[in-house]
Every structure is written in structure tokens, then in C-alpha cells.
């Protein structure tokens, strides 16, 4: 993943963009943060955030013209937050003002002409950058036109308090010192420019000709000022404030903003760097932060009981609570995986990139990369359509290619896939009595593992209804390899499937698994593929006596792999309707559906996150659920949800208590697949199949079976350990427990088993495994 691609992808995530209030504020006060502090009663923090961007907080807290309110999201619901009133209470209640830092002085001198808000802001900001500042003010006081504001609105002690800051910095202030041709001028503007390295002109609404500036003016007589840099026609002279805004458009916030913009320009000018590079986000702008306001109810603005005093603490807290704390996080709200890591995709994308880039050190993001279900919900809900699954899957592929994928992440799922694509399960046949197939049934490894009893019933039904022969293909579609980032293994798996399918004459594939359907559709372009549900919706259902089930209300869970399969989802609903059931739509359904915790091999990599995903989903409705994917059904059932697989409802009898069917463990799943193959060969093709005989008979109590499943240890692994120990004598005896302990490493994993002989077999007491090798 190169930097350019990373930037392109992370730019889709808008979460880092400021809320509308901050973007609308010409000096970008962190209003959201300030209001959050007020909610907590932390006025010092609120003041700190306000003062960080506003050099004269006492004054501005009384006279700000609130450009922030035009960007407030509440404008779309009721009234914007009363931000200035909240700033005022921060300024009034603050007990500990932030400390000032005096930087080392530089040699360059800057003249500030005019001590209004823009000039004083420029003077203060440039001082903070270490420049030597000399202020020339024509009157006998600082502040310019703010003195025209009535004292009832702007108490004079606030002006004095804010301007006292100049006593703490080495700023030279020349009062009653006019520049230009005005009466009493001590210096021409041209002389001033000669004596200083840069000049900021903030003289307010003045008749320009009287100043004899020698700067370019437009046809209306206004000074020509670059709107981005505030540069004038003379190289070292910058101008802003009311001289730029005009007397009719005075704005305290914009004047302060001009002072800050001019500071950046003067600093760049004096450092000899570009005045114009990367200056897009200065002053007011419109944010691209998306905030979902669906369901937000109108709330009237809080009015102060005593308007002259402003909000009291209670009123301020009430008004602060009206703030929506704008943020996007649409994907984080929808996805437990994204919420688990306490960030958002822009941050995650950067972590993934860093994880891939480091050569030495700990790869902190490995587990995060491998935990994503790749379900695509984030892309669907993201205003910029950023897909974290795409990033994670690509990262997995790169980790595999570089040999940096931890073997523990996907090894068990890949071994399970290997089993399903071994001779124990794979079968490719035409229908008995046919030499060609019009269609071929591909039930999937997971349906065979979860509901082995229905495979033959579906196959027989298809054979009855479809003319021209229905073949059968047993195997795994390769999804685990695809999700694990094992590109070579996946390609090899798909090629083998394609070869087997072509050997049957390339018939139309009918599958009972949404993952197989999705994998074939995306990666085998020549293959015509359909799920049984769209087919059954067309050709009708097998309404046999035993398929009857009392009509009930069922909530449908659409599998994430069917997110964009509208027709399939509709067919499933049609079938449930034909079966007489009432359908409840879950809040997340169809193209907005969630994963069940299996996608992307999440459940193997990160059980904690998978269980969060499952539990969030199963709590969306009290109703029994119905799914059309074996793994969705099993994952929900494993956490205690009553859930049906649609295939069981059509082909089984509800006397079997289908919604509470036990979920088979990993060993049982493999056993079920193998039995599906042998029973089909015997019962459909009439072949004699010999069962493989196990040398070792084991008795495993249910509690130990659960431990083995949690540790992904198969019965077969345990048998191998005991067989090895008993044939070689390499075992330990625990004299206290009177049990044997033995280990065996068939391939990469070392398995340990604690067991004791019983009759003609062995009782298993415990099993564990590790990948660490004992070298000496």
C-alpha cells in the first residue's frame, strides 16, 4: 500500500474534519471541546480552549459576531447553540488562566500601524513568534473602535485586563503617533517601511489618501489586498481588519482573524518561504464533516433568567447539552469491530500503513487488521464510501507475501478448508443415470457441517424438479483462503473448483451458501451461479407433509455476503411468506445488514470482538431469527439466540426443535461433512464405502470438548497424540492424578493431551496446544 493510495483512501474518512461551528469561526475555536468542558463544569478547560484561538477572550466573549453559529448543525433542526454566551461564562468563571510563554527574540522588526483588534492580534501573535514589535497608534489608547461599544455591553475592565498582556511581552507601543500625512504624523509611511522588515497596516476605516501610503487602490478607492495572504502591492506590507472589511462590515471576529492571517504571511515572508502554499483552511470555511441528525428532536434555546448577567452555571449546562457534539463515526456506530479499537477509519488506515511499513519492532495492528469481518457495512454507511475491509484484506495479502502473517491467526480455518477440499469431503458427480448436468448443486462445506441431514433432501428435490440432470459438487469455495489474504492458495483452490466444474460440462451452479455464491460470482466470471432461494422462488417449494411448521413472527438476518443481492433477499422473503410466516425487518437489513461474526475469519482471530458483533446483532429483536447462511445461524445460536436456518424450515420437521438445534463443534463439523459424502455415495449412487477405522478410541467429556473447541483442537489431533504416545512409549505419568501426559507435533502445532486408559479406549481429561518449538 503506497503513501499515495493511503492518502486517497483516508481522505474518504471525514471524521477528522472540524464541526461546522469551528470551521465557521474565522479563528477556529474548538467550540465542541469548549462545550464539552462546560458540560463537565470545567470552565478553566473551556476558557483554555477559547483563549487558545482568541487573543483577547474577555473582549471577544462580549462582542463576538458569532460566525460559528451559521455553521451550527442545529440550524437544520431548530436554533443554533448560543456559543458566545457559553464563551462568556468560561471567561467569567475561569480561575486559572493558561501561562504565557516568551520565546527568544529574533532580530527582525515588524511595525504595526493601528492598535485596533487586527493590529493588536498581529502584534501579539508576532511577538509570540519572537519578532520585535513596534506599535504606532494615532490615539492615546489601544483598542480602536471597540471603545465605541457601550460599557453596558463591553465592561471597560475587560478591555484593560485583556490588553494587560502587552505589559508581559517586549512590545514597544507608541501612542499618539500617526503615520502618514495626518496632522501630527512623525513619520511618512515610506520611511516606516524603510526602517522595518515588515509592516502590518490595521488603521481601521480611514480615508486612505490622507495616509499617503503609496499602495495600489482599486477603482472604488479601496486598498488592493490579497484575500488569502493579506499582502498589499508593496512587498513587505500587509493589511487587514476594518481597512479591508469596510466600515459597514466591521467584525471583531474577522479583524482578529485578519491579524492571525497576516501573522502567518509576515512570518513566512521573513523566513523567505512561500506565502501561498497550503493556505486553504484559514478564516471561515464550510466543513465536510458529516453528522447524522436523524432522530434529533428540537429543543428551544436556553434563555438566561437575567440577560444582563448571561447564563448561570445551570443554564450554561442546559445550553451545552443542546450541542450535538458533531462527529461522523457512522461506521463506528454501525460496527462493533470499528468501535472496539476506539478510533475511526482514518486513524486505523494510518495504523495499518505503519504496521506494514515497520521492519523491526512490534506489529501492534496485526490483530486489528485480522479482526475485520470484511463485510462492507462501513463502506455502505460512510458518506465517502471508505471500505476498511478493503484496506484490511490488502494488508493481510501483503503480510502473507512478506512472511509477516502470524501463523496463529488463520491456521485453523485454513486447515479446516484443507479438510473440506480433501478426499474426505470432495465429490464431483453427475446425477445417477446421467452423463451430463444441466445444473450442479454445491451445498457448501458449512451447510454440510451444520445441517448434514438436509443435503440429500435438497439434492433429491432438485433432481425431481430439474430436467437434464443435476450434478453434485462437494467442497469448500476457498473463502477462508481469500479472507486470510492467502492469494496463492485461494487462486489454486478456485482453479481446482473451476477445473472440476468444467469437467462436469460447466453446468449452472446452484449453491446453498451465500459465501460460496459471493465467491463464485466475483471470482469465476465464466460460472453461472444462483442460490437455491431464487431458484425455489421460481420453481416452488417441496411442500411435503414433514416440512409443515406453525406460522410465526420471524426476524430476517441477511448475510453480509448478500449485501448487494436485492433479488436474493426478496426471494427469501417471498419464501417465508409462502411458508406463512410474518416477517420482521431488523434495523440493519438488506444492503445495510451486519456480519454474524464469521466473515473475514473474525471468530477465529478475535473471539472477543466476534462475540460483541454477535451479541449486538441478536439483541436487535426479541423475535426468533431466520438466516439463510449456516455460519450466521450457528454463531447466533452459539450465544443463546433462537434462530432458524431457512433450509431447515423447508426441509425438516419442526418437531426437531429447529431454532434450538445444537451447534456442532469443530470436530463434529468435519465428521458431518465426511458423513454427508459417504451417505450420498451409498444412498444416491449406491456405492459401497468403507468407513476409515480409527486405531484409537477416545472418550471425551462435554466439558473437555468445549475446552478443545475453544482452543481449536480437533478430536483427530487428540487421537494422534495418544496413538503416538502409546506406540512409542513417549509419555509422562502424573503420579498424583494417575494420568498420562503426552505431546505430538503433526505439522506446525504441538498438541498436549492428559489422558488415562479406560476399557479398550482412553478418557481425555485436558488438551492444549502451542506453536513454540522446543529446540534443545
Amino acid at each position, binding site marked *: 500500500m503506497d503513501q499515495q493510495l493511503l492518502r486517497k483512501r483516508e481522505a474518504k474518512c471525514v471524521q477528522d474534519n472540524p464541526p461546522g461551528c469551528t470551521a465557521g469561526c474565522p479563528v477556529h475555536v474548538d467550540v465542541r471541546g469548549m462545550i464539552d468542558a462546560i458540560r463537565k463544569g470545567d470552565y478553566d478547560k473551556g476558557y483554555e480552549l477559547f483563549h487558545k484561538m482568541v487573543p483577547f477572550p474577555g473582549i471577544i466573549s462580549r462582542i463576538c459576531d458569532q460566525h460559528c453559529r451559521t455553521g451550527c448543525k442545529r440550524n437544520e433542526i431548530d436554533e443554533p447553540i448560543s456559543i458566545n454566551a457559553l464563551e462568556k461564562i468560561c471567561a467569567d468563571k475561569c480561575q486559572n488562566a493558561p501561562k504565557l510563554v516568551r520565546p527568544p527574540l529574533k532580530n527582525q522588526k515588524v511595525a504595526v500601524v493601528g492598535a485596533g483588534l487586527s493590529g493588536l492580534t498581529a502584534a501579539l501573535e508576532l511577538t509570540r513568534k519572537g519578532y520585535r514589535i513596534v506599535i504606532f497608534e494615532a490615539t492615546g489608547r489601544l483598542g480602536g473602535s471597540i471603545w465605541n461599544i457601550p460599557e453596558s455591553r463591553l465592561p471597560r475592565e475587560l478591555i484593560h485586563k485583556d490588553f494587560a498582556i502587552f505589559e508581559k511581552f517586549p512590545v514597544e507601543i507608541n501612542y499618539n503617533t500617526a503615520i502618514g500625512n495626518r496632522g501630527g504624523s512623525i513619520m511618512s509611511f515610506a520611511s516606516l517601511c524603510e526602517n522595518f522588515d515588515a509592516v502590518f497596516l490595521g488603521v481601521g476605516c480611514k480615508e486612505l489618501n490622507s495616509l499617503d501610503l503609496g499602495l495600489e487602490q482599486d477603482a472604488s478607492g479601496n486598498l488592493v489586498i490579497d484575500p488569502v495572504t493579506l499582502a498589499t502591492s508593496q512587498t513587505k506590507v500587509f493589511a487587514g481588519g476594518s481597512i479591508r472589511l469596510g466600515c459597514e462590515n466591521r467584525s471583531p471576529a474577522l479583524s482578529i482573524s485578519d491579524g492571525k492571517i497576516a501573522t502567518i504571511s509576515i512570518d513566512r515572508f521573513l523566513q523567505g518561504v512561500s506565502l501561498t502554499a497550503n493556505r486553504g483552511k484559514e478564516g471561515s470555511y464550510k466543513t465536510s464533516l458529516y453528522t447524522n441528525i436523524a432522530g434529533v428532536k428540537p429543543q428551544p434555546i436556553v434563555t438566561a433568567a437575567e440577560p444582563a448577567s448571561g447564563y448561570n452555571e445551570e443554564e450554561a449546562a442546559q445550553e451545552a447539552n443542546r450541542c450535538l457534539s458533531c462527529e461522523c463515526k457512522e461506521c463506528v456506530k454501525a460496527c462493533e469491530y470499528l468501535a472496539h479499537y476506539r478510533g475511526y477509519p482514518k486513524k486505523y488506515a494510518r495504523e495499518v500503513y505503519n504496521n506494514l511499513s515497520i521492519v523491526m519492532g512490534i506489529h501492534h495492528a496485526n490483530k486489528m487488521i485480522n479482526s475485520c469481518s470484511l463485510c462492507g457495512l462501513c463502506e455502505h454507511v460512510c458518506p465517502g464510501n471508505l471500505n476498511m475491509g478493503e484496506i484490511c484484506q490488502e494488508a493481510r495479502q501483503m503480510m502473507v507475501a512478506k512472511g509477516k502473517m502470524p501463523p496463529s491467526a488463520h491456521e485453523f480455518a485454513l486447515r479446516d478448508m484443507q479438510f473440506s477440499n480433501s478426499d474426505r469431503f470432495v465429490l464431483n458427480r453427475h446425477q445417477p443415470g446421467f452423463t451430463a448436468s444441466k445444473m450442479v448443486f454445491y451445498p457448501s462445506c458449512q451447510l454440510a457441517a451444520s445441517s448434514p441431514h438436509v443435503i440429500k433432501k435438497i439434492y433429491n428435490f432438485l433432481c425431481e424438479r430439474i430436467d437434464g440432470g443435476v450434478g453434485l459438487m462437494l467442497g469448500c469455495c476457498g473463502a477462508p483462503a481469500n479472507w486470510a489474504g492467502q492469494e496463492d492458495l485461494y487462486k489454486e483452490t478456485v482453479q481446482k473448483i473451476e477445473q472440476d466444474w468444467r469437467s462436469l460440462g460447466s453446468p449452472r451452479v446452484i449453491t446453498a451458501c451465500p459465501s460460496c455464491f459471493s465467491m463464485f460470482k466475483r471470482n469465476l466470471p465464466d460460472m453461472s451461479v444462483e442460490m437455491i432461494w431464487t431458484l425455489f422462488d421460481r420453481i416452488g417449494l417441496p411442500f411435503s407433509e414433514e416440512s409443515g411448521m406453525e406460522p410465526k413472527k420471524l426476524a430476517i438476518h441477511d448475510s453480509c455476503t448478500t449485501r448487494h443481492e436485492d433479488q436474493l433477499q426478496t426471494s427469501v422473503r417471498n419464501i417465508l411468506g409462502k411458508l406463512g410466516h410474518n416477517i420482521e425487518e431488523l434495523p440493519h437489513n438488506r444492503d445495510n445488514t451486519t456480519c454474524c461474526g464469521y466473515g473475514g475469519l473474525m471468530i477465529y482471530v478475535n473471539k472477543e470482538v466476534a462475540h460483541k458483533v454477535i451479541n449486538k446483532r441478536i439483541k436487535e429483536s426479541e423475535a426468533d431469527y431466520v438466516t439463510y447462511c449456516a455460519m450466521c445461524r450457528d454463531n447466533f445460536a452459539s450465544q443463546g439466540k433462537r434462530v432458524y436456518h431457512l433450509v431447515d424450515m423447508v426441509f425438516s420437521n419442526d418437531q426437531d426443535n429447529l431454532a434450538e438445534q445444537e451447534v456442532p463443534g469443530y470436530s463434529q463439523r468435519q465428521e458431518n461433512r465426511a458423513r454427508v459424502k459417504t451417505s450420498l455415495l451409498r444412498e444416491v449412487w449406491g456405492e459401497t464405502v468403507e468407513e476409515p477405522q480409527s486405531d484409537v478410541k477416545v472418550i471425551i467429556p462435554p466439558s473437555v470438548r468445549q475446552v478443545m473447541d475453544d482452543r481449536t483442537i480437533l478430536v483427530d489431533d487428540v487421537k494422534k497424540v495418544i496413538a503416538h504416545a502409546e506406540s512409542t512409549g513417549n509419555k*509422562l505419568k*502424573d503420579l498424583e492424578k494417575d494420568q498420562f501426559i503426552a505431546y505430538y507435533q503433526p505439522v506446525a502445532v504441538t498438541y498436549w493431551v492428559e489422558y488415562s486408559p479406560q476399557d479398550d479406549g482412553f478418557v481425555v481429561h485436558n488438551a492444549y496446544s502451542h506453536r*513454540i518449538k522446543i529446540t534443545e
Partner: protein
Amino acid sequence: MSNHAGQQTVNLVCVKCGINLTLGKIALEYLGSNFPVELYK
């Protein structure tokens, strides 16, 4: 494994040679890194 090592004594006997396991230095290897540890052997 660490639990085993943390115990003062273990009552494990090698079935083949009838000798009690005692603490000893062994080398473990994982993903190309080696870890010398003391375990019963």
C-alpha cells in the same frame, strides 16, 4: 507451561525411563526468535 515451571515440585515421571522430571535449561523457538527458559524436563 509457565504454571508448571512456577511450581516448586512436580510429580511427573518419564514412563520410558522411570525418572522424575527436574528443572533444566531448554531453548524455545517462535517465529525465528529463541527463548532460553528453565522448565521441567
